């Protein structure tokens, strides 16, 4: 498995090579891309901050969760940090599996889970302002313990 937080452009070809196996008939590859509009505001660019050492560790944990639920062959994830322009890819998730159904379902579930728990943050900058996007307020830590990500 491959889990990376990188400062430069992402490398989809490398992820696909990483997950390709002779016994796998399907690869699902997801690109998260910077959109020009969010919640009705015209976005100029984004800034991503990350806790890289923990982010790659949590990626591995959620990948293991996914492997426990779907018969997937391999998984690779890359996320970019720093300033990203409209149209640039911030996230790549690649999943290979013997069959396409598992590849699609596991890749989708992995992206959903990624956005819940991986310590990466996005600042949206628009004409005349900026804000950190913090998703939904989460449960308080006392009920959201380490076991949630195991």
């Amino acid at each position: 498995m491959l889990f990376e937080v990188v400062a430069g452009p992402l490398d989809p070809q490398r992820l696909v090579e990483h997950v390709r196996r002779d016994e796998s008939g399907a690869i699902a590859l997801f690109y998260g891309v910077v959109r020009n509009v969010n919640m009705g505001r015209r976005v100029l660019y984004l800034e991503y901050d990350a806790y890289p050492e923990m982010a790659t560790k949590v990626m591995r944990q959620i990948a293991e969760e996914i492997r426990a639920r779907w018969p997937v062959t391999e998984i690779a994830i890359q996320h970019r940090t720093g300033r990203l322009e409209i149209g640039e890819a911030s996230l790549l998730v690649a999943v290979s599996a013997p069959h396409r159904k598992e590849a699609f379902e596991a890749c989708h579930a992995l992206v959903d889970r990624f956005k819940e728990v991986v310590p990466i943050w996005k600042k949206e900058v628009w004409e005349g302002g900026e804000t950190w996007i913090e998703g939904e307020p989460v449960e308080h830590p006392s009920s959201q313990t380490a076991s949630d990500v195991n």
Partner: protein
Amino acid sequence: MTGVGKARVRLFARLSELARTRETEVELGEGLTVGDAYALLCRRFPDLAGFENIVMYAVNAEYVSRDHPLRDGDELALIPPVSGGARVV
């Protein structure tokens, strides 16, 4: 207060902007928990106050609850709600 070591503290995203630093330290009193450390940091960086209920905590890169005790040499991270990928979930 008996000093029993130090923990490194890392701040990210909005919290690092509010504290105007990405890294600091706390002196550990006996049985000092993660939640206690956040209260200490709020005295040092008043703009952090009010985020107790949305922040999550990690010690040595593992999520922990606020009553988790800190030990000498630990790395405590203050984790605002995450927003990986290109948009709000």
